[in-house]
């Protein structure tokens, strides 16, 4: 039904094709599900976050001057979640990306107000993917322990950056330039910054405590997740890896982060649906629960369908990320675009189906509405990922025709 290369690779193969790293549970077989250990991790994470990260915590950060919840950050760090996908040699626990995805979904459900995505999916992933051995040894233990917060700084103006839009320059060990809307940029210790050296684009490693770094906190559409403008005025910096890695490697990093952030979006969407379902069952009008009207039932059914389609795309994304094969490019686009849309739809429906109270500051709907848009924005909106998807499909098609 679908383009050959991708779907063929997904056709169940005979067990003799299976590599050494087979399923870890007693069950093998068509296994598009999490293992028992991963399910246990999910249960543990959900119990912990239900207790420690109620929506009131998100609201408390949103209504205060705090950039994030330091208490929750400490607890999450102690649980070792930040090092989930970091090898033990660098201070992590050496699990895989699927485990990280499981945690991401739970964080998404609770709108946890911590710089988890910036640190774990972007900074740590960047160093794992592109860093030199020395950089890994220097930075990963700090990020894995939660001692340092990491982030990724890319955009310099409104719009979707092309290579030519990167005007930040790294030369002679210093970096100069401006970055806008850097997630957690006001509190991060370490930033991976897109920069150029002549025509080549790479990722610069910048320690943000340097005096030549100016950071200005800016108002965020979701104040439970902070944003800052960064100005580098000849701040000390080095390339991640031995040299500027090139634009394509940065896209590869974004693909990886996209899958993990998609799981946060999936979690948020699912929780929004659950809360909306609960509300409409308890809210009576015209003598019946509003959830008994087809106008409401069908909208909730449609929302459920969109979330399940996104969930399936996310699961495939997690599988592709774990296997790190050629499937990842398309899988990331599918997971990211569908999860962005599902969370945004869930949060808009949440407000609409709550009616007037959904528009009040007092109700929690706006926490979801804000987080959905924030998560959609920080890694490019769904439209960009759809465009990237077709670009990749067209390339695959050309390659197939020429071979």
């Amino acid at each position: 039904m679908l383009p050959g290369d991708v779907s063929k690779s997904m056709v169940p193969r005979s067990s003799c094709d299976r590599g050494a790293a087979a399923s870890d549970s007693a069950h093998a077989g068509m296994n598009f599900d999490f293992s028992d250990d991963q399910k246990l991790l999910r249960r543990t994470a959900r119990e912990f976050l239900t207790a420690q990260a109620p929506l009131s915590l998100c609201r408390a950060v949103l209504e205060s001057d705090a950039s994030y919840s330091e208490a929750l950050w400490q607890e999450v760090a102690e649980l070792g979640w930040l090092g989930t996908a970091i090898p033990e040699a660098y201070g992590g626990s050496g699990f895989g990306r699927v485990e990280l995805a499981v945690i991401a979904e739970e964080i998404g459900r609770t709108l946890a107000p911590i710089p988890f995505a910036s640190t774990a999916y972007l900074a740590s992933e960047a160093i794992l993917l592109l860093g030199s051995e020395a950089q890994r040894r220097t930075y990963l233990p700090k990020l894995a322990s939660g001692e340092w917060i990491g982030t990724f700084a890319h955009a310099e103006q409104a719009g979707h950056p092309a290579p030519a839009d990167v005007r930040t320059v790294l030369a002679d060990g210093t970096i100069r330039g401006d970055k806008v809307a850097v997630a957690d940029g006001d509190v991060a210790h370490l930033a991976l910054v897109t920069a150029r050296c002549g025509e080549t684009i790479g990722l610069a490693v910048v320690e943000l405590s340097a005096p030549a770094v100016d950071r200005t906190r800016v108002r965020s559409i979701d104040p439970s997740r902070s944003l800052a403008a960064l100005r580098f005025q000849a701040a000390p910096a080095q390339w991640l890896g031995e040299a500027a890695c090139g634009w394509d490697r940065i896209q590869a990093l974004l693909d990886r982060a996209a899958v993990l952030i998609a799981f946060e979006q999936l979690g948020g969407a699912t929780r929004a649906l659950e809360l909306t379902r609960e509300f409409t069952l308890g809210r009576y009008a015209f003598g019946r629960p509003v959830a008994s009207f087809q106008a409401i039932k069908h909208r909730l059914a449609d929302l459920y369908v969109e979330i399940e389609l996104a969930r399936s795309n996310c699961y495939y994304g997690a599988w592709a990320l774990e296997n790190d094969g050629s499937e990842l490019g398309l899988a990331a686009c599918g997971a990211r675009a569908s999860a962005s849309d599902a969370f945004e739809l869930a949060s808009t429906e949440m407000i609409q189906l709550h009616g007037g109270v959904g528009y009040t500051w007092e109700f929690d709907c706006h926490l979801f509405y804000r987080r959905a848009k924030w998560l959609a924005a920080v890694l490019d909106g769904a439209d960009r990922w759809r465009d990237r998807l077709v670009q990749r499909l067209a390339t695959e098609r050309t390659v197939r025709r020429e071979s």
Partner: protein
Amino acid sequence: MDFNDTPDEAEFRATARAWLEANAERLKPGERGPGLESRADPAAIQRAQAWQARKADAGWACITWPKQYGGRGSTAIKNVIWKQEESRFRTPPDIFGIGQGMLGPTIMVHGSEEQKQRYLRPMLRGEEIWCQLFSEPSAGSDLAGLRTSAVRDGDDWIINGQKIWTTGAQYCKWGMIVTRTDPTAEKHKGITYFIVDMHAPGIEVRPIKQINGLSGFNEVFFTDVRVPDRNRVGAVNDGWRGALTTLMNERHSIGGGGAGGPDFTDLLALAAKTTVGDRRAIDDAAVRQRLARFYIRLKGLQYTSYRTQTALSRGQTPGPESSIGKLVGAPLRQDMASFAIDLQGVAGAMNDRERASDEGAWQQMYLGAPGLRLAGGTDEILRNIIAERVLGLPPEIRTDKGIAFKDVPSGRKNQ
């Protein structure tokens, strides 16, 4: 997460593939399996019956049926594996699905021992083809509103009324019919289920011409049709339970199989060869957005079916995720066809095998797609099912409860 067979499943797949290699021809790259349009062609029916008999002789008919009725006595996941393998070979259209997938299992649960002995084996071998006589002009989504009557007459029942949307009525030997046997009872409580000989006197089959010009469905008229009481399935006035078994099996048997016609690969190819202004359609931003949306939905459905297969492989009943296939797939095919026609510009108005792009396949899909959204549960009924059974929202408020069926308003009142 992985997508490999268990050793047991792998062995089953290899055995199935080996038998298929020896008994059928593999589809060539790009070649599609049979569509549904040729179903009523007598030569195609003969080929289908010959293929079914061959499968039955070798133990490949009705994978999940108990061995005592000629089945393989195997699991749902092996049935999925068999269908995956069989779909890679050139085989006749499957005209036995309604019997083998829905009615046979109903007889196994609600039928008498005599009925099981008499009907199941010929059904499995494809010697006797079956149809399902459920919908009526005034009872579609509201199936229990059916009015076709059965009145006791000695050892027989006399059936009068009209059924509609009956697939295959013109070539079937047997049908299973739900009838009204007590109009003074509440609507679900006066229904009785029968097996009826489609060649019995008083049955008239009229094909329905669909908007795509084909006739996959029929109207079936019953005028004083005599059915012996031994053909009753289940107790008198308890037929709704049997009907629910049939419908449950219908839901389980839907999904997986493609409905034929062009697919995303064809759509991508079309976008690469048509133009928008001075560039290829595939390079146009708006076109790309649409293409990506189609791809992601199709993939979402495909991966959702993997989740269903995972449950089957573990011997679990598939969860609610299996209910979304048709609700998403049918409108998606309609949208893809509409978009493909738009890509063709003015030429898209042609529905002409000789001249239209892809031999007019998109135009045919466009004209066929509305039926997919209605058959086997309309989009709206499927949304109700998801809302009520998956999300646990309240059922519809009913105005036909607690009153005799004969007092329930029905049909169209504005004629």
